[in-house]
């Protein structure tokens, strides 16, 4: 019964937006608008869910871990979550205190974590980027030109570098990406179809 209801809801939500895309019928347009607006609201609830999951995992970390650092980290994480939420819910996400936490912790935190990638790239470049075969050779060739084409020093080394780099991106890269894009599109279509019709092995939820 519950499984049937789930399958029916999944199917209906999908088929309505598909039909409304192809057919200009009044009631379909209304149904599409309703379903989409509801989707935004349910997604907003789901956003909060992810954070609750995090709370759960970290409460477990506090109660079951033997490592003191683990416990301290979990407490800090939960405290940060609670403080941020309370300030945001009472004073709003554009208040001064909220902005201090956003600009002081959230924004620099994420951008530094992303930026750290440059270090792993450098050591992988040194240790692992070997021209072992044709594949690796082509990869190195194209990456070297694209890297040098992205910065002024490339042109200083050889004036042709920007043009070659642009050509690699616009022609062979474009063609290859297009092939992958079409293939991935077919794959995503197939996944969507299986999901709508409930023939996927992976369970919803």
């Amino acid at each position: 019964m519950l499984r049937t209801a789930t399958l029916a809801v999944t199917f209906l939500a999908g088929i309505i937006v598909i039909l409304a895309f192809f057919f200009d019928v009044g009631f379909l347009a209304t149904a599409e608008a309703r379903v989409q607006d509801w989707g935004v609201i349910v997604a907003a609830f789901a956003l909060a869910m992810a954070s609750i999951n995090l709370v759960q995992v970290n409460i477990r970390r506090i109660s079951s871990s033997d490592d003191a650092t683990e416990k301290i980290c979990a407490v800090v994480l939960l405290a940060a979550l609670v403080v941020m939420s309370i300030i945001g819910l009472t004073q709003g996400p554009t208040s001064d205190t909220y902005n201090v936490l956003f600009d002081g912790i959230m924004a620099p935190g994420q951008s530094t974590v992303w930026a750290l990638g440059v270090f792993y790239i450098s050591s992988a470049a040194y240790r692992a980027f070997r021209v072992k075969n044709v594949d690796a050779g082509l990869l190195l060739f194209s990456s070297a030109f694209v890297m040098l084409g992205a910065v002024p020093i490339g042109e200083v080394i050889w004036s042709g570098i920007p043009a070659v780099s642009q050509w690699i991106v616009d022609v062979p890269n474009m063609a290859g990406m297009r092939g992958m894009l079409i293939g991935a599109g077919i794959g995503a279509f197939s996944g969507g179809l299986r999901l709508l019709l409930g023939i996927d092995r992976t369970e919803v939820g």
Partner: protein
Amino acid sequence: MIQGRQFTLLLFLVMSVIMLYAGNYVRKGKKTIKIRRLSAVEAIPEAIGRATEAGRPVHFSPGLAAITGLDAPQTFAGISLLRYIAKLTARYDVRLIVTIRQPAVLPLAQETIRQSYLEEGKFDALSQVDVMFLSDQQFAYAAAASGVIMREKAAASFLFGAFWAENLMLAEVGTQVDAYQISGTASIGQVPFFVTTTDYCLIGEELYAAAASLTADEVFLGAILGQDICKGIMVALLVVGVIVTAVGSDLFVRLLSL
């Protein structure tokens, strides 16, 4: 019917019908589908063989994605490959270490391994298996998993599933301990880094094909057959359209714009 979407609707229907038909065809067992050879898959026994000779453990990661959402199929494909790899480690008595980022994947991995060891009749050898939940934080997981690979000096490292910016940390530490590394991900943005740092890499959809070929899962196989036929149609549209356009007719441009 909305103008300019007729051909889209036609293709939409054709693709749907083909995929459903192919799925049914495989499920009813009318024909066994053979997946082409994938060199990354063929290299797995060799990697485990090397670990046996060296007496060092094998590391496996099913990626960082959860079991729900858009990237979930990658996690399931990773678990399917784990099933195969665990059978080999059971057979050759090699220590297996699995590192996990998603709490929900932990029981899935444990059960899969248990099943594999049972099927190989090596239930006692399960004590040689470590399935570790490390952290649900992306980089904390990657740091901890790198630490495990480094300390245990893994002789082989398998990275199959969804990975993001942290993949280089994992693959690079594998290089440092001279592990034989085989990777696979459908997160196309990460493939370049796997291709450069690991010995073999399953690119994009190859991950699913590998999972299907090793487990003979009907849903996977049916999907692959359906997608192959659809790709055939796209190739035909491409080739015929290009030829017709080259001859000077805009027939296909107009057809696809309908």
